[in-house]
């Protein structure tokens, strides 16, 4: 190949050893983006996809039209949930490092999204989460011990040992089963929302994917169907700047904001400060309201940062500056809400530390309890026979004979 390549290669602004550089992020000051009526025509609200909806300013003061004016108790509760998410993640990460669960993924730095949106949606609304929405499960009532039991694949595991750790689901909490296959939940949410509309109900659906996952076919399928049938659904793109080792530009994010991805289909997009619980709450209420009134889908891009490694199998120091998160201009969502509450006189460092201790104890207690239902090495163990259940509602006979064969082999090496 004699000539020089003319292919454009997207590159992150910083690699290991470089100064972190977030100059590529278009930021609007808090309060700067107008809040339209939910009845606004799509073409009149395109500006929402390029601005950045923010409520908390640099000084942690809430301002502007998107300020939801939540009362302090609500915000304290929100802070509690975010903290719980973080404390839980930290503990589970350690537990994985100790070899006591096989895998883990944390939501470090992205906690505001699950919690704010959990608060903004109604219980009857159905959530189709990604693997970084553990906060949503917590907020929707899943007990920590149940989440831990799932991670342990033990006798109380809601998945009966069938899924990797963190692949929760909650029937009663209306949170769908997490899939290892990226973005597949997106069309499910749209189909669920279509069914809700067909049934004349006013429950809506919401789903979450990462920036990287927008390149999958199912992202397109979901947007297309949502637009055509005006499905009552909120489609969230959590742009945490990274997809394993690939920065968001590898999914085209450096050409235009992900919030704009639906514009060509007439789907309004909102770009929001994903580390600002008030802003996320507010845009979600807006989008939910719009959907419930028959206004159709909204795409929300949450600008945030993946504070930790992709998963326990990952080592981000190989591909990004170690201190990148510290330079992220939108900060830490917990820190920001905490300071806001302190500024307003509804919180203090002491209370915060006490809360962290309390939650740490809560998580520890849950872990103690969870282990009673079995660990990877100590019983009680799930009965291996159950691995043949639930493949079908009405199973073929061959599964029955395979079950018997498996037991024979487990019991006596199959000698009978």
């Amino acid at each position, binding site marked *: 190949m004699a000539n020089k390549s003319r292919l454009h290669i997207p590159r992150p602004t910083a690699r290991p050893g470089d100064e972190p550089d977030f100059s590529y992020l278009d930021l609007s000051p808090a309060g700067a983006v107008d809040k339209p009526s939910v009845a606004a025509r799509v073409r009149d609200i395109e500006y929402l996809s390029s601005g950045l909806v923010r409520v908390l300013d640099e000084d942690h003061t809430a301002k502007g039209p998107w300020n939801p004016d939540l009362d302090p108790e609500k915000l304290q509760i929100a802070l509690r949930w975010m903290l719980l998410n973080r404390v839980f993640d930290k503990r589970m990460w350690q537990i994985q490092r100790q070899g006591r669960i096989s895998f883990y993924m944390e939501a470090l730095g992205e906690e505001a999204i699950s919690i704010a949106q959990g608060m903004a949606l109604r219980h009857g609304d*159905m959530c*189709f989460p990604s693997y970084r929405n553990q906060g949503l499960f917590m907020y929707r009532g899943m007990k920590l011990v149940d989440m831990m039991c799932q991670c342990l694949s033990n006798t109380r*595991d*809601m*998945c*009966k040992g*069938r*899924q990797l750790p963190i*692949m929760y*689901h909650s*029937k009663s909490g209306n949170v*769908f*089963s997490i*899939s290892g*296959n990226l973005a*597949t939940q*997106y*069309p*499910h*949410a*749209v*189909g*669920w*929302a*279509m*069914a*809700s509309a*067909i*049934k004349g109900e006013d429950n809506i*659906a919401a789903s979450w994917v990462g920036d990287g996952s927008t390149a999958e*076919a*199912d992202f*397109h*399928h*979901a947007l*297309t*169907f949502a637009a*055509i*049938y005006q499905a009552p659904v909120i489609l969230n793109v959590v742009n945490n700047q990274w997809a394993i080792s690939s920065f968001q530009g590898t999914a085209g994010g450096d050409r235009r904001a992900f919030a704009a991805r639906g514009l060509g289909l007439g789907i309004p997009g909102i770009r929001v400060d994903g580390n600002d619980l008030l802003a996320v709450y507010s845009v979600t209420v807006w989008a939910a309201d719009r959907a419930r009134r028959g206004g159709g889908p909204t795409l929300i891009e949450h600008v945030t940062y993946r504070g930790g490694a992709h998963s326990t199998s990952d080592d981000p120091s190989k591909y990004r500056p170690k201190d990148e998160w510290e330079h992220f201009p939108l900060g830490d969502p917990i820190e920001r809400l905490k300071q806001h509450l302190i500024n307003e006189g509804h919180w203090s460092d002491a209370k915060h530390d006490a809360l962290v201790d309390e939650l740490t104890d809560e998580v520890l207690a849950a872990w103690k309890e969870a282990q009673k239902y079995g660990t990877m090495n100590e019983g009680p163990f799930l009965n291996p026979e159950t691995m043949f*259940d*639930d*493949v*079908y*509602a*009405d*199973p*073929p*006979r*061959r599964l029955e004979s395979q079950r018997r064969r498996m037991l024979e082999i487990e019991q006596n090496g199959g000698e009978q």
Partner: protein
Amino acid sequence: MAQMNMIEAIRSAMDVTMNRDPSVVVLGQDVGYFGGVFRCTDGLQRKYGEHRVIDAPISEGGIIGTAIGMGVNGLRPVAEIQFADYIYPGFDQIVSELAKLRYRSAGDFFSPVTIRTPCGGGIRGGQTHSQSPEGIFTHVSGIKTIMPSNPYDAKGLLIAAIESDDPVVFFEPKRIYNGPFDGDPDRPAVSWASHPKGEVPEGHYTVPIGLAEVVQPGSALTIITYGTLVHVAVAAAKTAGVDAEVIDVRSLSPLDETTLTDSVKKTGRCLIAHEATRFGGYGAELAAIIQKNCFYHLEAPVSRVAGWDTPYPHAFEWQYFPGKKRMVAGIRRVMETAA
């Protein structure tokens, strides 16, 4: 009882279930106002409305993906994929989601989607309107795979599929939509009117999923097949003058091993036939099972007649299609093998 061809029977199955159960919805390309390119949904939108018989965009992945979500929300979606050759863009949603949802959520979530799709050749459709991909579905745990060979079974099995809480991929051999086909393209087309399985009850009934049918009893040889080739097998056995027992598998997964095994134990010889490509096809599983279950009864190796291991060529449709000639040759081979 009424006379129905396979299209009418399939339509009737949807009509009957939609009528009984408001949660049944139909979606697919051109299925609504137009009634489907093969007319299988003709009239359903007029009867049940645009909200239950939904014209979908050209997005097989989206059709199946959204159908799954609808199923999770309590509907019973019947999705049409216009040709089985076009099911692949929806393959990930079928394999990774539809098939595994119940399992991975330990039964808490499931989606009772039925996917109907016309398959098979013999209609001059060339390589992209003739495929028989059933073999790649039967390998996937968590879904059921069905292929009827006549109007009566088509309706009864489709109702069973729609009513089943398990996902079903329902293949419709389009060559026999309008009449049975004995594999000889030079003979005039026959209609279902003269066939006993063209007699179809107007109302609700089911043909249980998981049962094969002995189409014709015999003692010299068992021919195990399904879809269009059931008719070819019957005709070929006659031409070959062999007293063959012909079995229509119908339900490819779950498979009725008992009926198959009993028959081959009785006859001692077995020919397996399908239209799909031979290598790695569904017939391989049938052969593997039969040789295992009937080892001491077999007087000849289990043999297969199948589509060649090439795409389905437009000009050589009748050299590709395992028609009467090839079936007769297959029967002779099995019969001539010294016991």
